[in-house]
């Protein structure tokens, strides 16, 4: 019997997900033993046309990372969905938009204008890249940018979600083990739509920092204090996203003295990440006077970014009105 087929693809992404997979080291050999790796551009010769030629559902497991920034990304998402039995939204970009999803706060026109009018840009005739442009020798094409960045499940049906920026290597190894066991009839796959390769609680639950249930009188920027290495960062006034963020990373950033920035996405059962974080922050504020509360809240200089840093594109908000109405941004 032939081995089940494995694929991994990257859309609009940074490549960190691939590096994290490569960092599972010898586990890669287990993947290689259990699967026929048919498509993985970073690690092997990827025969794109071979994928197109496959029968639908021929690929057993596809890890798909990256967001949907242009029409070509969407084309690849649809192709991989069609050819894969199990399609996993792999990493923060595919699951919830990640940092590039912050672009959804502005319109596509603003995004392109900014990139082509920077301090060092020499652009006397105010050019913008065009999806199709005629040069003396012929017509040239580049993909058309989407008005705003979409998550994978906003374009195709997704079977599982594996969060993290990037997903931690030990979590990837555990998922590989689970899928191999399930294929051998020794384990059951979780129900469709489940989050895999992560915990069911919050980063705070994994964080070794001491909590004294102490309230704060002000928020502190991390560079403005010498933070105590043992105490909860939020109790020191540093806006740490641990209370709303899904566990699974072993609280890597707080252990290294840096606040959690939320890369593992909303904790289990959290409908709106930002709302959960607002309530967590509100609960540590030590004041009942509206004026004083206002003053304390002024210490959060970027609430929108703070509360939707990684998951704006996948949140209930998705994109600003400007982004959603700007459909003709690439004209002229």
């Amino acid at each position, binding site marked *: 019997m032939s081995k089940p087929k494995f694929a991994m693809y*990257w859309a*609009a*992404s*940074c*490549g*960190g997900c*691939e*590096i*994290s997979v490569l*960092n599972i080291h010898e586990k890669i050999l287990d993947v290689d033993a259990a699967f026929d790796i048919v498509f993985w*551009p*970073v690690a*092997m*010769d*990827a*025969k794109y046309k071979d994928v197109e030629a496959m029968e639908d559902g021929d690929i057993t497991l596809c890890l798909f990372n990256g967001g949907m*920034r242009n029409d*070509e990304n969407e084309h690849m998402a649809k192709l991989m969905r069609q050819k894969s039995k199990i399609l996993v939204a792999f990493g923060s970009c595919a699951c919830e938009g*990640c*940092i*590039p999803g*912050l*672009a959804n706060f*502005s319109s596509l026109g603003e*995004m*392109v204008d*900014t990139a082509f009018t920077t*301090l*060092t*840009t*020499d652009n006397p005739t105010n*050019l*913008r*890249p*065009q999806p199709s*442009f005629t*040069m003396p*020798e*012929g017509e040239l094409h*580049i*993909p058309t940018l989407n008005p705003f960045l979409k998550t994978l499940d906003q374009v195709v049906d997704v079977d599982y979600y594996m969060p993290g920026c*990037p997903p931690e*290597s030990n979590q990837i190894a555990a998922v590989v083990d689970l899928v191999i066991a399930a294929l051998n009839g020794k384990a059951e796959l979780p129900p469709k739509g489940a989050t895999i390769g992560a915990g069911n609680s919050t980063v705070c639950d994994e964080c070794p920092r001491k909590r004294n249930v102490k309230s704060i009188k002000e928020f502190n920027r*991390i*560079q*403005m*204090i*010498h*933070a105590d*290495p043992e105490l909860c960062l939020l109790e020191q006034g540093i806006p740490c996203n641990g209370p709303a963020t899904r566990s699974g990373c072993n609280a*890597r*950033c707080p*252990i*290294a*003295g*840096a606040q959690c*920035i939320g890369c593992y996405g909303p904790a289990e059962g959290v409908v709106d990440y930002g709302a959960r974080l607002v309530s967590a922050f509100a609960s540590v504020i030590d004041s009942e006077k509206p004026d004083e509360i206002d003053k304390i809240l002024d210490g959060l*200089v*970027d609430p929108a*970014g703070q509360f939707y840093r990684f998951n704006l594109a996948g949140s209930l908000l998705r994109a600003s009105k400007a982004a959603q109405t700007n459909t003709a941004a690439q004209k002229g």
Partner: protein
Amino acid sequence: MQRITIDPITRLEGHGKIEIFLNDEGNVANTYFQIPELRGFERFCIGRPVEEMPLLTNRICGVCPEAHHMAAAKAVDAVYHVDPPAPAKKLRELLYSAFYCTDHTTHFYALGGPDFIMGPDAPVAERNILGVIHKVGLEVGGKVIQMRKYGHTVVEIIGGRKVHPCTSIPGGLTKGITEEQRKQIEEMGRFAIEFAQFSLKAFNDIVLGNKQYVDLILGDIYTHHTYYMGLVDENNKVNFYDGKVRVVDPDGKEFVKYAPKDYADNIAEHVEPWTYLKFPYLKKVGWKGLVDGKDSGIYMATPLSRLNASDGMATPLAQAEYEKFYKTLGGKPVHQRLAIHWARLVELLYAAERWMELATDPEITSPNFHTIPTEKPTEGVGIVEAPRGTLTHHYWTDERGVVTKVNLIVGTTNNYAPITMSIKKAADSLIKKGKVNEGLLNMVEMAFRAYDPCFGCATHSLPGQMPLEITIHAADGERVDVLKQYC
């Protein structure tokens, strides 16, 4: 008019495309190298607290996030006008040196090196890391894995994470290292030096010992007489983390040496409507199109450029290799692009030596790793040498330290024009009267790999072989021929 489309099948698919147009005689009329991606970091970083920039800009590239983290760290120091304490700067540079060892190792053994070690005439099936292992010895595979693992371990110890480090903040770091960690780093550093020496020896035995290979470097068809850029210390020695940007002209004479804050007086970026990437050039020379020579502002920023733009290496073993490099290749500057691979190994040895110097520095375990900023944040520039070229981050903030404007000139972007020129030169010499030499695939691939381009982390494919497919279309769009090369 005939049209040839080169669509690399790996990462560059969707992230890079080459169009070659032939004239009526069937010779090359023009070539276009298009980058079809834009994620908009310069826009969406606006409004964010500036201390988040080392975390946000990591996500530009997951292969070299350390470079963005460090350029951002230096830019946010500058925004707050704060000078981090010496131990913090040393720890950052230690992390960065270990990262360089990992990155250069990956490139040499898996990506670019096979062209050299196996020779470009070797069968395609052998020109990959497995071929290298067979030729250099089986134990080399284990050493390569060990080197990469050690580099990542140091990044994790100092930076908190293996991918996307999180510890740099305005004024220094969020943490230091313990004596126990230092010892571990020192031990791994010793291995790194041995590994770099081993790599240079392998290069020496296999490549330099073979006249045919030396001729290949010297006779390289990717020779372009351009300007060269690199970061140097106060003695004009190569430095990856700090210093001034020095540019030498095609004759090797210093053209300019500028402090990071003055980059905009020296660099500008040309725009074309058919690609999402801009073409940087030397502002004081000017944009003259995709041509080389002293009158054209095109410059290169790679390991070779850094050696050309400097007066040497700051560590003894690497300095000896630097001298040998220029003695063998006939003096400075070296214009042959294939020499980038050798230059990369000289840098690998420097990075390993610097790693050891810093790991044994008496203040490296000091708890004095952060200075609290006291001045109002305004504007700041941070420059480091990314493995693939000089990396510039420039941020402006309001008085609360919230970002109001961002400018980024990313490592590989510096080389967009030179890579395009190399592609055109390869096409010109291999397409005559409508006949496409099969060597075109190989030559285009080698052009890419020498520069180690990272267009959104492009072409970081491990087999060291970029599968390509060239489709030749006649003027009516009918497909005439297809050339394929897979691993």
